[in-house]
């Protein structure tokens, strides 16, 4: 379908984009890869009068090694994240998660910042951000601030970004020795989005799980950490029995409804099964 008409503004720099955002008040939308925004506009669910294209800002897509963290520019494409040597070496979980997004066409266009800012409750990257304890950098009229991934996703398609702000960078802590991650995705056969996706990153030291972060996407209004699972892992021996016991808590506190994707019971089961599978692989990676 054809979107309603709009004005297109290519931004030359972050400052330029922010100025345009300020200028057009409530009306504008940032355009990055366009792979969430344009479909919504074509269906006329959204009809922004102004589009500010940040996809052409040269430095905004860089992926750099920041030592203890990998710094990823907001407009880095999913495909760049997947193939980046720094990402693969220092935060392999992120590369794995990004490789599950859509298909090659989508990954060649969609951006990390766009996906996170869009905050689709079934998107893959938010789970990775939570599991990896990433920090999101937002820039606005008042300057730059950082937001912990834990605080970033607030509701369905809603984030902690203020109006007039944009995401400029994502900082992902590099994994240390004894740390391993894995992503288990159960994709919807139609859309390819996650019915459930579990991203797990665990730290093992001397046969004991010393830290664990588990991010879940798909089954809730937003991506969320599975605190009960994490709690059941930390301090326990790095064994299959620990994993099984912890995974049993994957649906704790979550409320599911019966819908076209399955019964509430089925969804709780999926959360547990995929959590167990993700944790088993994460442990294997941590102890490899």
């Amino acid at each position: 379908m054809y979107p309603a008409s709009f004005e297109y503004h290519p931004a030359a720099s972050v400052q330029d984009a922010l100025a345009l955002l300020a200028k057009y008040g409530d009306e504008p939308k940032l355009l990055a890869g366009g792979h969430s925004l344009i479909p919504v506009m074509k269906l006329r669910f959204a009809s922004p009068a102004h589009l500010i294209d940040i996809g052409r800002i040269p430095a905004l897509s860089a992926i750099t090694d920041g030592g203890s963290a990998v710094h990823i520019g907001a407009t880095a494409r999913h495909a760049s994240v997947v193939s980046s040597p720094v990402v693969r070496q220092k935060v392999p979980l992120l590369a794995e998660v990004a490789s599950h997004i859509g298909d090659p066409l989508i990954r060649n266009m969609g951006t990390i910042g766009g996906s996170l800012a869009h905050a689709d409750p079934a998107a893959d990257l938010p789970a990775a951000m939570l599991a990896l304890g990433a920090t999101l950098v937002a820039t606005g009229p008042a300057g730059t601030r950082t937001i912990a991934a834990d605080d970033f996703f607030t509701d369905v398609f809603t984030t902690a970004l203020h109006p007039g702000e944009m995401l400029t960078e994502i900082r992902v802590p590099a994994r240390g020795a004894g740390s391993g991650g894995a992503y288990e995705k159960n994709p919807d056969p139609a859309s390819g989005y996650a019915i459930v996706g579990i991203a797990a990153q665990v730290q093992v030291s001397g046969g004991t799980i010393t830290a664990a972060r588990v991010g879940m996407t798909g089954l809730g209004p937003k991506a969320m950490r599975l605190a009960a699972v994490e709690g059941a892992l930390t301090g326990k021996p790095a064994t299959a029995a620990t994993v099984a016991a912890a995974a049993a808590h994957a649906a704790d506190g979550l409320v599911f409804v019966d819908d076209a994707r399955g019964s509430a019971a089925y969804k709780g089961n999926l959360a547990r099964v995929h959590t167990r599978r993700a944790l088993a692989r994460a442990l294997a990676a941590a102890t490899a």
Partner: protein
Amino acid sequence: MATTAQPGASLMGASVRRKEDPRFITGTGRYTDDLKLAGQTYAAFVRSPHANATINAIDASAALAIPGVHAVLTGEDMKKAGVNPIPPGWLHPGIKIAEYRALAVGRVAHVGNAVAVVIADSPTIARDAADAVVVDYTDHPAVADAVSALKPGAPLVHADAPGNVVFTWQLGDAAATDAAIAGAKTVVKQHLVNQRLIANAMEPRASLASYDPAADELTLYVTSQNPHVHRLIMGAFVLGIPEHKFRVIAPDVGGGFGSKIFIYPEECVVAWASKVVGRPVKWTATRSEAYLTDAHGRDHDTDVEMAFDANGKIVALRVKTVANLGAYLTLFAPAVPTYLYGTLLSGQYNIPAIHVDVTAAYTHTTPVDAYRGAGRPEATYVLERTLDVAARQLGIDPAELRRRNLIAPDAFPFQTAVALQYDSGNYEPALDKALAMVDYKGFRAQQAAARAKGKLLGIGLSSYIEACGLAPSHIVGSLGAQAGLYESGVVRIHPTGKVTVLTGSHSHGQGHETTFAQIVASELGCTIDDVEIVHGDTGRVPFGMGTYGSRSGAVGGAAIFNSLQKVKEKGRKIAAHLLEAAPEDVDFAGGNYFVKGSPSRAKGFGEVALAAYLAHNIPADMEPGLEATTFFNPGNFVFPFGTHIAAVEVDSETGQVTVQRYVAVDDFGNVINPMIVDGQLHGGIAQGTAQALWEGAQYDSNGQLLTGSLMNYAIPKAEFLPNFETDRTVTPSPVNPLGVKGAGEAGTIASTAAVANAVIDALSPFGITHLDMPLTPAKIWSAIQGAKGGN
């Protein structure tokens, strides 16, 4: 592997690379939406958001005020102008035909029913203006599923179709069937839902109409599988335009699967509107519109009783089906759940008594019509799924149960209990070959070992027959078809010996430009590059019936073949004249006419062609020129058959199904191009597997389509499927000179039951005997929990 053409060599049976593909894969195909005519305008439709509503008023004032809008037209405007409703092309006694207007008048009967059209300078303006048209509706309760629609008190779809019954239809001997069932050792009963599907051709429907007032001639470019049928019905019945003033062109068409056979409201509106506004008008469907308005497929609710004697022989089959035809009757709709379904219910089996009883219902949903296989997949599913249920109940291996009931090879021609006479067939070799390919015994052992470890493996067979090559005109005429189903083929030899073929068949993915050229090249000894295949234009091609029902090779190809014989025969007379020999002493081979026994006394085909056109030196009583026309009317259907086997693994924790192997052994008679046939088969298997596992249109109780996009209607993706392992047996069809049968639909016909059977087989340790499709992970998991006594 693909080969390239060698001049002179027979190309029949060669996997020649498709001639048409370079233009498709380099973006130089010409689809309807690619065409731009001077002064072209664009149509956008105002569609009903309600499934059942009265139209109180239409206010177009805001739309008309938008700059660039030429017109806003309504159903009342069309009716006043004398445009008629769109008729179905197949009738039954007592059928209730609801008025199907291109733009609704007074009321709407499904979501997406077109109410008005905006004609504007650009697609965007047209869309904006369509959104600005205000329609005042009174919304009424709706009914979306056919079983509910037939219940007393259900919302009525059309006042003149009481009880929402379109027609009832029966075939077979009811009394004999009742008696056989009453006396049977075992009667297997099963309720089966064959869910509604949406075709999803890659190219959405489109049309572009242009009216030339000077010649009083209308040209319509349209995504059609059968442009002459479009011209006939739109011209003669809907718009009232004489055929010699109406040209329909179906240029490159990107897939149809049946959905582009029918005469749709949009092309009627566009054709009429181009005359009203005096400018060419174009419309291209969005994917969302395709979901709401392309005719859907399947949608049967069936009760089966299959009765057996003590030896596991089927003694009778009773089938009661409710078919959902949607809100209006489209072209083939009445034939699909009847003649294309009931007649196939004998399958490959010797079933002495069969009775089928069909009730077709109107509902407040998108019309349902032929979708790849059309009736035959539904029949195959009924037989093959029930046979597996029976095998379990009788304690007989499913392959063995099928084998016991096959029609013997010496029983042909075989008269079934449901009207068809199978002319040829030999089913056991295909079954054996498929079982050997999949290593059936080995799989059963592997399955048992896997089960011991809690792994769920399953295997499913589907031994199918189908009747295609539609169709003997006298037979279909006696069954209610409003036209015959022959095909035209013109072979025009140019003075240089190059060849133009005009065919009434229409290629929208099938590769006719290659396979038909192979027939010509093989017969004339030229290369396929010497041959041009012209199709899809009523201005160039003689009247033809188009492509559906796997008929192009068996009917369209046969017409071309027969024209080639006529041309060759005339050429022989000319050659004999030039060689001063008697015609019966002249042979033709490798592109040369020569005197028998002295091959050096020869004339090339090109020389003969030139002589035919120069006409200086041809037999005195002969007309110049070298061209022949054939209208080939087949004597019977053709009957492809085969056995498909799927092997699956079910993840008991998630319900996820993985198709591990897929083996297909088919008998398509002689095969012109094995690569193209495999391609047809592969696509069909993908679609049929998708019905078993993923696809299914869903409506809510208000008649809203819940699966209205690719985001929530799961079409198959390559990564979901294994490599298909195909092989063939060859039993040439006796009804056409090429000995070919149709291969376009077999994949969808066979595969759905094979995959569904495999999944249920995998679940059999839980005592699960049947689940309705699509066999989604959620459904499978819940069934396993239910069987375990959990929730």
